């Protein structure tokens, strides 16, 4: 038992810190720390900086231009970039599609798509969820009917995060209605510039439009865009989901959120004292901090097991549930800390260089936004109810 990083890991951490110090633009980290909107160009700028260093393919092996890092190194990188308020790496091409192509894609697909993901030629989005399906991913209704050298795709995807920026989408489509629901699903890559693809934004309750509906109306997709075999897409989809669950605990985000919460509580007046000296509020902060200290170790235990070659199982479901509860509690306390200034909503103030400044302290509106926006954490990627069901079945054997 040793809770400390090895000397090699510490050296690696120092490298990451030095890189962030030198290369992360202050303009970007200020936007992230201040809860401002990131533009497509912001993400692309940061991706390019990472790619130049060879650190964009965090989960990729070296042969494909990735880092080749193990789970602990990935964790350290995640921890440091989050603490430094770097933009997140947009995961759809890098963490989701990339691993699927490496394992199941054709040589031509690998050669064509993987470099384009790294160099920013393609912006991928995810076409998994459909209206009315929720966490029941296998109920795919979007159809792809073979017609000569093409598939004709019809249907609708939803909750497509950052789809407004994307030029490519990977989709689960139904190619057969025979057998079990899982058996007729295929995994298709679709160019969003093909006629018949339409993207419509969904405004969420925080007023932002980061997710979209994507409609397919007789969209002609070349057969070479099929990944792996027809009707085997469910296998690839599940493989992708296990990769999606990297950093599922969100410890880095929680740490950053907790630090911001303490800073805000130290600034807010509460009668004759600061809010952080209010024993009730201090107790709530302490409680979530104690939970997070334990959670960080629960996470490290899973990461150490992964680094030792154990496949992450239902443990990731436990990390998801507790991790999202902790982050949402931090969001709720931060909103609470904002006091009456949680109420004003000035959308323009979230844009860089806007003439409209915030109303009240600059942390207040983003606190409310983050609270409402992060209700999604316990819903998407398999709702916490689905995760509890997995824990109950796989670990408790109920």
């Amino acid at each position, binding site marked *: 038992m040793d809770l400390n990083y090895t000397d090699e890991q510490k050296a690696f951490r120092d490298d990451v810190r030095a890189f962030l110090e030198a290369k992360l633009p202050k303009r970007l980290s200020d936007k992230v720390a201040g809860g401002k909107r990131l533009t497509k160009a912001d993400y692309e700028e940061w991706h390019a900086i990472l790619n130049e260093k060879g650190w964009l393919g965090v989960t990729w092996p070296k042969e494909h231009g990735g880092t080749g890092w193990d789970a602990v190194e990935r964790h350290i990188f995640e921890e440091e970039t989050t603490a430094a308020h770097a933009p997140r790496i947009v995961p759809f091409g890098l963490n989701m599609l990339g691993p699927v192509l490496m394992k199941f894609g054709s040589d031509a697909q690998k050669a064509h798509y993987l470099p384009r993901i790294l160099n920013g030629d393609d912006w991928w989005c995810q076409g998994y969820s459909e209206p009315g399906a929720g966490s029941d991913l296998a109920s795919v209704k979007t159809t792809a009917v073979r017609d000569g050298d093409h598939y004709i795709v019809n249907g609708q995807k939803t909750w497509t995060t950052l789809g407004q920026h994307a030029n490519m989408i990977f989709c689960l489509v139904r190619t057969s209605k025979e057998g079990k629901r899982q058996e007729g699903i295929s995994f298709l890559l679709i160019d969003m510039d093909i006629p018949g693809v339409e993207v419509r934004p969904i405004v969420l309750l925080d007023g932002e439009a980061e997710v979209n509906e994507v409609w397919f109306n007789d969209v002609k997709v070349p057969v070479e865009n099929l990944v792996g075999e027809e009707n085997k897409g469910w296998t690839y989809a599940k493989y992708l989901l296990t990769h999606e669950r990297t950093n599922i605990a969100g410890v880095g985000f929680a740490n950053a959120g907790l630090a911001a919460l303490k800073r805000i509580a130290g600034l807010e007046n509460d009668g004759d004292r600061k809010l952080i000296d209010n024993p009730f509020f201090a107790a709530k902060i302490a409680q979530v901090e104690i939970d997070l200290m334990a959670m960080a170790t629960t996470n490290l235990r899973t990461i150490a097991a992964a680094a030792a070659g154990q496949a992450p199982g239902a443990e990731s479901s436990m990390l998801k549930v507790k991790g999202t509860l902790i982050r949402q509690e931090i969001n709720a306390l931060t909103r609470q800390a904002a006091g*009456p200034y949680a109420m004003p909503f000035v959308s323009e103030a979230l844009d860089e260089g806007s003439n409209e400044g915030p109303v009240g302290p600059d942390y207040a509106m983003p606190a409310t936004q983050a609270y409402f926006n992060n209700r999604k954490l316990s819903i998407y990627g398999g709702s916490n109810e689905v995760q509890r069901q997995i824990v109950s079945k796989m670990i408790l054997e109920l």
Partner: protein
Amino acid sequence: MNFTLTEERQMLQDGLRRYLRDTVTPDLLEDATESASGHSETLWQGLAEMGVIGALFSEEDGGFGGAGFDIALTFEEMGRAGAFEPLLETGILAGGLIAALGSDEQKARIEAIIGGDILTYAHAEPGSRYDLSRVTTRAAKSGEGWTLTGLKSVVPHAPAATHAVVSARTSGAVADRDGLSLFLVPLDVTGLSARDYTVNGGGRAAELSLVDVDLPADALIGPEGGAFDAIETAHARATCAVCAEALGLMESIRALTTEYLQTRKQFGQPIGKFQALQHRMADVLIEIEQARSAVINLAGHLEADRTIRERHVSAAKNLIGRVGKLVVEESIQMHGGIGMTREYALAHLAKRLMMIDHRFGDADYHLERFIRLAAA
């Protein structure tokens, strides 16, 4: 002991519920927020014509209600509809303070208020958080009149109002109870500027800046330096109103969520057949019944002695804050993704309900206050 409404109140409740159900639509609410005034002229006039504003004033003051249960039933219906109008600011806060402390001349204004004049109330300041006595805006005697200087924060419905009842310190240190005075301030007076903006949960509010605002002598409402007790009473009544509004919001959210659970299918059956959700929804319902009782307790003690009244104020606001958060979070969670979208009715109701915890003191503020009141 009797938990049924009087016939008059039952009629008001039925009429108001029917009117709001027929009138309030998502479009009306969105247009209201988008409009410069931040509210719906149609709805406001309709409420005035129904006599809803009058229900917030006693007969003595020209209304036909004004008791705790009048406030509770009115705002419960407003909450049920998800409506936001300057009812609280006009009828309870500004209007209520004029009724409580005003001279006969000032009270003459109440008739117009009941008829639909819109007022607001500017008390909180940047940095005062929920502390009732923390006022740094100063009013100094100048000649016959007064000169006010200071900042007032998050003043709801200021863009729609012609006047504001503004608190200012005429003596005392920053958090003293003594030394607070109230003034009736026209919002177009020289030296007053407003930055207005939309608020989460609907409607508009403003930051007010007063720089050497000159007011006549008769702008002073009530005794110089002695307004605190009336302010506290008005906040008690306002707390009753927002607690009742929260209850109405909870009821609508519960109805939406229950219907969703009954109709939405997943894994081959309505998700309301999943026992884990059934039990959680049962707990939500039980807590909403607790919220209803807390509103009844507060409404029933609004005319009691200060200690008893304020104990119920803090008990109700604490409980409503806790239950409101539970209802917001569980309803969004049970809806899944659709509960996150602004287009769906839940989004507006949930945001409005959550924001009530940010008005007149949040759950923690009132928990600590409840303990302090018990020890006193």
